[in-house]
């Protein structure tokens, strides 16, 4: 990143990886997720393909959205990924709809709704949790509380410390977990997902975490205390996982080394795929608006 290959602005997930991973490793391929403007992590965790994602970030025809969506709109219906979303709070309603659909069709599917702390002040959060709760829908609301909505520290945007407290307003369970501890996240998600599958309704899970980078790439983040940032960098979830794996002899330094190399290789391949892919043809700009209407083009 930051090499100018990627148009527009991107919101990185760095520092919050344990949440998406810990949650999604509980999900089946046909389960649904709704995501946010900070969606890369969720999409990868739900089985999205790095190549197509990278190509989309580059605005190429081979991207998930044929270059029409970009970073904030990556989706893969075949994997139940109902899309990243550029509108803060929009995913909440959509998740409720997916939950209603799953319950109505009786498929046993669940929908996980990922969202940030800032979005919990949006009206859609309230309406969605209320609806999911009265209808006992199989929706798991996962709040990634990274302490900020852009420059607004949580203490300035809401008068509570735990977003999970808001579950009371909907008579649903509210759980707080260390969002940088992948096992804690996994456990909490597992229980909530089981409740949902058993028709016991939604759960609100709050994962305390932190974004290592600025809100978007280029954000100077003058609003954050460097001390605070340093502290959280030390809590990096991936580091913690690796340390844990070594301490408990689950894998060796070498193996982790290898994993890292593989991941980097995959990323390099994805970047190469994206770079080598063609841009979409101009006419495609007026396709895919409707299933059955193609709008007029302009001659240029």
């Amino acid at each position, binding site marked *: 990143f930051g090499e100018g290959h990627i148009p527009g602005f991107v919101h990185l997930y760095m520092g919050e990886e344990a949440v998406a991973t810990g949650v999604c490793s509980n999900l089946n391929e046909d389960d649904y997720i709704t995501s946010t403007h900070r969606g890369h992590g969720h999409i990868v965790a739900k089985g999205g393909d790095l190549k197509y994602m990278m190509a989309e970030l580059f605005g190429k025809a081979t991207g998930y959205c044929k270059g029409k969506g970009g970073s904030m709109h990556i989706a893969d219906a075949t994997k139940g990924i109902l*899309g990243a979303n550029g509108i803060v709070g929009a995913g909440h309603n959509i998740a409720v709809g997916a939950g209603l659909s799953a319950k109505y069709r009786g498929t046993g599917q669940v929908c996980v709704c990922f969202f940030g702390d800032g979005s919990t002040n949006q009206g859609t959060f309230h309406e969605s949790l209320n609806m999911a709760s009265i209808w006992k829908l199989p929706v798991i609301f996962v709040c990634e509380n990274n302490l900020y909505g852009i420059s607004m520290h949580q203490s300035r945007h809401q008068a509570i410390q735990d977003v999970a407290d808001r579950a009371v307003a909907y008579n649903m369970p509210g759980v707080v977990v260390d969002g940088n501890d992948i096992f804690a996240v996994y456990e909490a998600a597992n229980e909530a997902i089981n409740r949902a599958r058993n028709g016991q309704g939604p759960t609100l899970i709050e994962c305390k975490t932190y974004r290592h980078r600025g809100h978007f790439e280029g954000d100077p983040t003058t609003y954050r205390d460097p001390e605070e940032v340093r502290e959280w960098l030390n809590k990096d979830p991936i580091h913690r996982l690796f340390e844990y794996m070594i301490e408990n002899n689950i894998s060796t330094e070498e193996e982790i080394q290898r994993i890292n190399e593989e991941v980097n290789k995959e990323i390099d391949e994805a970047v190469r795929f994206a770079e080598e892919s063609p841009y979409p043809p101009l006419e495609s700009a007026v396709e895919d608006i409707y299933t059955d209407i193609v709008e007029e083009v302009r001659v240029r």
Partner: protein
Amino acid sequence: MRKMTYSEAIREGMRRRMKEDPNIIILGEDVGEFGGCFGVTGDLIKTFGPERVRDTPISEGAIVGCAVGAAATGLRPIAELMFNDFMTVGMDQLVNQAAKMRYMFGGKITLPMVVRMPTGAGTRAAAQHSQSLEAWLTHVPGLKVVYPSTPKDAYGLMLSSIDDDNPVMYMEHKVLYAMSGEVDENMEPIPLGVADVKREGEDLTIIATGRMVHEALNAASKLSQDGIEVEVIDPRTLYPLDNKTIFNSIEKTNKVIIVTEETKRGSYAGEIAAIIAEECFDNLDAPVARVCSLDSPIPFSPVLEDYVVPNFQDIINAVKKML
């Protein structure tokens, strides 16, 4: 063939399709037991039960957003907004989600959903319950907009709106609910994008929508007593718009007046006028005229409301001015 009201026609259209397809559900405030604020969903809950005719909390944003999520995952929801004025509360879900999702995802998702919106003035319901906001919706790529003016059209267009794989905004005029007419319950769906010539005439073309179709027909019959033969075209779907029928009529009459209940400024009537001005320039003997509501909110007092909204007399005046 059976006589039904406009409101029954909408209901029976939904009932017919819901019988055929279990994936069609209805969502909205008081649509169940209560039968809908205007009685449109009526007894559907008796036929299909509360799971398929679902009462919601007062949360328009969530109603539309929920329909989007359901449509994206295999259902064909029909959402009711109690008044089209409340689309303001679900505007993001309509415009930034429903309308754009297919495009943003590169065509890899379909959203078969209908949003029903009781529209228009005439019920002494004042500024927040009387608007005609179709222009906003026609401005949004990704949405189709339907606006029937008779029971038959309401029935046939409801079938095709439900059958459509795109988000369809289905406008209903509140004052027309009680109007009755013949409907063939086995009729074919009326395809979106096909206008209906409600009356033929050679002297002048009137393009009217919703309740204004009837004001225009009323004006036309009065004018024909003075030997003036007006052609009345009802587009029936605002988008896609049936330009061909409109252009053909203008080629014949060389004069056109557009009549809608919208606030004139920024109205869809303006878009139609702009299209005609651009495409029919050489066929026009007179400037394209618009008869719309005054540029004010809809006032409560009956005397004021009846003045702000156009009626047959205003249409007659406009026609005589043009001829």
